[in-house]
């Protein structure tokens, strides 16, 4: 398989603290890859390591087939950092000219490419304004323009729509989908799960510095069987029985959300309620949304941490 990103046991420690540990990722070319995790889970550490901002403690990684640290391959990589800040005393056009120079683009390439990316991110008519006069959303668009300058084969975007309004988000989604159609690979780090769900082909979840699940959205969804029940007379006995049958259990009022590993467990849930003296009004097998998967995995982590 032609991989855009491959990491083997990539690890970064900050002294005794783990930034990320034994990360193994395989991202095929031509995909939008969503990288998900709670705050402090290690997402930015991984991105910064792949971008050469941090030096890995151990492990290996390849970007577009070249080992981490290869300077040449960076001509085909774009990056929009989470806390984007640019030389705000430059105009947008001057900023893009500077970044184009960093990419080693010729004057002819600059003349062709700079107006293209300005138009692509919707900043036409504003290119002669200084960056400092831009709104946060416009600055983020300018940052995206910098990342798109070399017509990158691989694009790393860390929370690329955090400062954008809904229209801006839609614009960025359209750009990303268009890039994918052109065979580009996009590594998307985002908390906006609905957005990730809309455009990502594969996702990985990171928790406490370790990737705990990775796959296509359908694969991940099929691995999760969620059941929602509405019942009355929930006793400690029923709660205990349900807890024994489920991977995770969430109770709010008369609604129980359970996560089981196989279909055969579903009738057992109903049985546990009835045998425990409860009255079951409704039982639905649900398809997990990305948000539910995210919360479930984050809670597993909290529970595990609690047990430790």
């Amino acid at each position: 398989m032609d991989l855009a990103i491959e990491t083997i046991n990539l690890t970064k420690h900050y002294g005794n603290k783990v930034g990320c540990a034994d990360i193994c990722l395989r991202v095929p070319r031509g995909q939008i890859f969503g990288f998900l995790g709670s705050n402090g889970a290690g997402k930015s550490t991984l991105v910064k390591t792949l971008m050469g901002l941090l030096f890995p403690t151990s492990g290996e990684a390849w970007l577009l087939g070249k080992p981490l640290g290869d300077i040449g391959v960076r001509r085909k990589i774009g990056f929009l950092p989470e806390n984007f800040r640019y030389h705000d005393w430059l105009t947008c056009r001057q900023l893009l000219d500077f970044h184009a120079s960093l990419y080693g683009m010729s004057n002819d390439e600059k003349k062709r490419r700079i107006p293209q990316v300005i138009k692509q991110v919707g900043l036409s008519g504003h290119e002669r304004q200084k960056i400092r006069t831009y709104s946060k959303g416009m600055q983020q668009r300018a940052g995206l323009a910098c990342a798109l300058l070399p017509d990158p084969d691989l694009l790393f975007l860390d929370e690329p729509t955090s400062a954008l309004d809904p229209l801006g988000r839609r614009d960025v989604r359209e750009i990303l989908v268009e890039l994918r159609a052109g065979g580009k690979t996009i590594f998307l780090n985002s908390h906006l799960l609905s957005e990730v769900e809309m455009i990502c082909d594969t996702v990985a979840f990171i928790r406490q510095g370790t990737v705990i699940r990775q796959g296509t959205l359908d694969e991940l969804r099929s691995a999760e069987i969620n059941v929602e029940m509405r019942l009355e007379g929930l006793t400690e006995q029923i709660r205990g029985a349900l807890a024994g049958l489920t991977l995770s259990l969430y109770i709010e009022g008369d609604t129980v959300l359970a996560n089981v590993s196989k279909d055969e467990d579903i009738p057992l849930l109903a049985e546990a309620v009835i045998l425990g003296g409860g009255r079951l009004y409704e039982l639905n097998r649900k398809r997990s949304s990305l948000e539910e998967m995210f919360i479930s995995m984050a809670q597993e982590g909290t529970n595990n941490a609690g047990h430790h």
Partner: protein
Amino acid sequence: MPAIIKITFREALGRKVVLISLILAAAFLGLYGTGVHFVAGDLARHPNPMLAQMIYPQLLSFGLYFGGFIVSFLAIFSAVGAISSEIESGIIQTIIPKPVRRDEIVLGKFLGTGLFLALYAALFFTVIYLLIHLKTGMELTGQWKALALFALQPVVLLAVTLCGSTVLPTIANGVVMFMLYAVSIIGGMVEQIGWLINNATLQQTGILASLIMPVDALYRKIVHLLMNPAANPLQALQQMGPFGSMSEPSVWMVVYAVLYVIFFAGMAVYLFGKRDI
């Protein structure tokens, strides 16, 4: 690297550092020129020509000393956050992932800022030199070498400040650099007193301070070059006072200053090359 040199230069222009520096230089040189003009006018009418021979060198060294002071301050302020402020703001995160090596980033900043500072210092020196030469008629020697050393002064400070900027936060770096600069200034004065009263301990303390930060030693060398003792029997009188140079720093001190620049520029490259951002 050319892109980094260009943006560093452009930053000095865009952030009005050049403009403000030139306005302040004009203010300083205007004031200094006015002083030189009136002193020269009065001394020309004075019956004792010896007085002019004693005061003109003082005027020159005074101008060079405080001119060097201004240029040195500019060097520290220009470089104090060259790397650290970009790390603190996050700008560096948009530059490192580009196809440029980290050493190119550091050296580009060094060359861009160094060129600006050297040109600024050269301009400063030239105006002071011309003011003294044209207004007082004083015959000065070794002006080209002196100009080169005057331009080297801020580059020395730039190298060490840039190195500090790769490992220290901006404010901490500023504090350290001003203390280092103060060590150089005070060391130079102490050494000067040491030669006046012939105290070896004070002389050695001054030399040690020059090894820690050779900027003041360069200044003393400049003064010696311009007022060549062989050309003037009143040299001992001319070189007295805090801005004089009782003992000429050897050529090895100049070599040391150049090596000092290379070492700290190299250390800046090395330290930034290893640093996690």
